[in-house]
C-alpha cells in the first residue's frame, strides 16, 4: 500500500509536468481558441471525398488485417494448445511476442520494408492481432469439451483431421465472437496507425494537424468517431445474429 503511494508520488514528481502551463489563463485562452477553430468543420465536397477515401482505406485495413489474423491465429492456435508437447512453448513465445508489441510499433517497423501507406498498417494489424487471437483461440481449444476429439483420435484419425472434424466445429462460435471483438478494436487502431504514415484517416489527421488546419481536423475526427460507431454496431448486430 505504501509502496503504491510511493510509486504514484514519485511518478508525478519525476515527470516535471507542466501543470502551470496547462492550467494558466493563457493556456485556457489558447485552448479556447484552439477548440474554436474546430468549428465549423470543413464540409466541402472535395474534402469530404478525401475523407471518404480515408474512411474506406481505414475500414479496409481493419477488415483485411483482422481476416489475415484469423487465419494466422488458427494456424498457430493448434500447436499452442495443450497436448502438443514439442511445439507448445515456442509457439506460445511467438504469440506472446506478436501481441506484446503494440500495433503502432509494428507499423513503424514495417514502414521500413513496406514503405508508407496502408499496406504496412494492414500487416501491422495482422501481426499484432494474430498474437492476440492465437492466444484466445488456443485457450478456446483447450477448454472445448474433449469428447469428439478423443473419439476420433481413438479411432486413429490424424491430428489435423481431428482438428477440422472435431475441434474446429466446436470452437467456431467463440472464434467468430473473438474475431468480431478484435475487429472493433482494430478499427480504432487502424484509424490512428496513419499517424506514423500507415495510411487511412490517421495519415490525413497527422497531415492536417501538422498544418494547423483545425476545421479539416474536426471533420476527420468526426469521421473517425462515425467509423468506430459503425463498426461497433455492425459487430454487435452480427454477434446478436450468431446467438439466434
Amino acid at each position, binding site marked *: 500500500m505504501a509502496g503504491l503511494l510511493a510509486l504514484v508520488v514519485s511518478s508525478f514528481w519525476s515527470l516535471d509536468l507542466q501543470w502551470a502551463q496547462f492550467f494558466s489563463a493563457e493556456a485556457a485562452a489558447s485552448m479556447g481558441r484552439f477548440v474554436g477553430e474546430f468549428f465549423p468543420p470543413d464540409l466541402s465536397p472535395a474534402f469530404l471525398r478525401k475523407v471518404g477515401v480515408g474512411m474506406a482505406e481505414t475500414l479496409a485495413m481493419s477488415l483485411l488485417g483482422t481476416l489475415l489474423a484469423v487465419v494466422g491465429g488458427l494456424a498457430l492456435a493448434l500447436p499452442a494448445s495443450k497436448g502438443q508437447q514439442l511445439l507448445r512453448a515456442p509457439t506460445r513465445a511467438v504469440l506472446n511476442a506478436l501481441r506484446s508489441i503494440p500495433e503502432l510499433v509494428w507499423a513503424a517497423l514495417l514502414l521500413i520494408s513496406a514503405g508508407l501507406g496502408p499496406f504496412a498498417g494492414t500487416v501491422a494489424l495482422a501481426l499484432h492481432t494474430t498474437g492476440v487471437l492465437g492466444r484466445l483461440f488456443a485457450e478456446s481449444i483447450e477448454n472445448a469439451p474433449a469428447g469428439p476429439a478423443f473419439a476420433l483420435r481413438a479411432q486413429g484419425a490424424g491430428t489435423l483431421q481431428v482438428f477440422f*472434424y472435431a475441434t474446429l466445429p466446436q470452437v467456431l462460435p467463440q472464434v467468430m465472437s473473438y474475431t468480431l471483438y478484435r475487429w472493433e478494436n482494430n478499427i480504432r487502431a487502424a484509424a490512428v496507425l496513419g499517424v506514423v504514415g500507415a495510411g487511412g484517416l490517421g495519415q490525413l489527421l497527422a497531415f492536417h494537424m501538422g498544418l494547423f488546419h483545425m476545421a479539416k481536423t474536426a471533420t476527420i475526427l468526426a469521421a473517425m468517431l462515425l467509423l468506430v460507431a459503425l463498426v461497433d454496431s455492425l459487430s454487435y448486430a452480427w454477434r446478436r445474429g450468431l446467438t439466434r
Partner: protein
Amino acid sequence: MDLELQGANARHPAARAGSVPALHGVSLRVAAGEQLAVIGPSGSGKTTLLHVLGAALPPQTGQLRLSGQDPWVLPRAALQRLRGQLFLAPQVPPLPPRQRVVTAVLAGRLPAQSLLSSLRSLLYPSDIPAAFSALEQFDLGDKLFERVDRLSGGERQRVGLARALLAPARLWLVDEPLSSLDPARAQQALNALTAGARERGVTLVTTLHQVDAALAHFPRIVGLRDGEVAFDLPAGQVTPERLARLYMQHEDELTGAAPSFATSVAQAADEVPEPVVMHCR
C-alpha cells in the same frame, strides 16, 4: 480382429495416483468376429475395460494384444494405424453440436482417408449414399442434413452408432449404446449393430446396462464387478442367481433402469460468450 487381455490393472484416467485401480487382474480373450456383452453394476469398470481394450488407456500391469500385436510398444505412427482398425464409441455421443449429421457420420471414415480428401469431404460430403444407408439402419435417414444439436439425445446416440458402420474397423467397442433409447429403438439399434458386425465379420464388444437385451442379443456375456471379472459364460449359462450376485446392492440396475448420465451435449450448444474484458480494449 482378435484381442487378448491378460492380467490387466488399469486406473481410470482422471483418478489420483495411489487410488484403487478401476480394473484388477482382468483377463479376456475374444476371437475374431465374436460378439460379446459386458454387464455389471455402475462403477464396476466397464468403461475403463473398453478403453483398455481400445488402446486408449495403457494398462498399468498386464498385457494387451490386438491381432497378436501389443499396441503399447509400437511407435506413434504405427499405433495410429493400428487404431485405425478399431472403433471406440463412447457413452456420450462424441458429436460436435454444430456439425451436420452427414459430416459427423462420415467422420467414421477418417482413418482411411488422406488429409486432402477428408478436407474435400468437409466442403462437399464425399459419400452421401453411404452415410444415408448407415443412418437408415438406425431409422435416421431423414436427418441426414440436420445439425447434431437439433437432434434429441436418443437420435444423437444412434448417429454415434451409425458411425461404426462406416468405419474401416475390424473391432467395435461400444459403450452403453442404449442409454438414451426407448425399448423399441433399443431393439432396433442392437439389431443393426449385431447384424452389421456379423455382415462385416467384425469383433463386437459392448457394455450394456440392459441385462435382458444383453442376454437376448449376445452369445457371450462377461460379468464385471468391482473391477474384476465375475464370470465369462455363454448367455445360456447365465443364471438369475449369478446375476443377483453380480448386481448385489445395485438391484435397481438389474431391472434395466440405466443410471442417468448427464447429456452434456445439449449444453455445449450455441452459447456465444461475451468476450472477456482483456487485452487493453
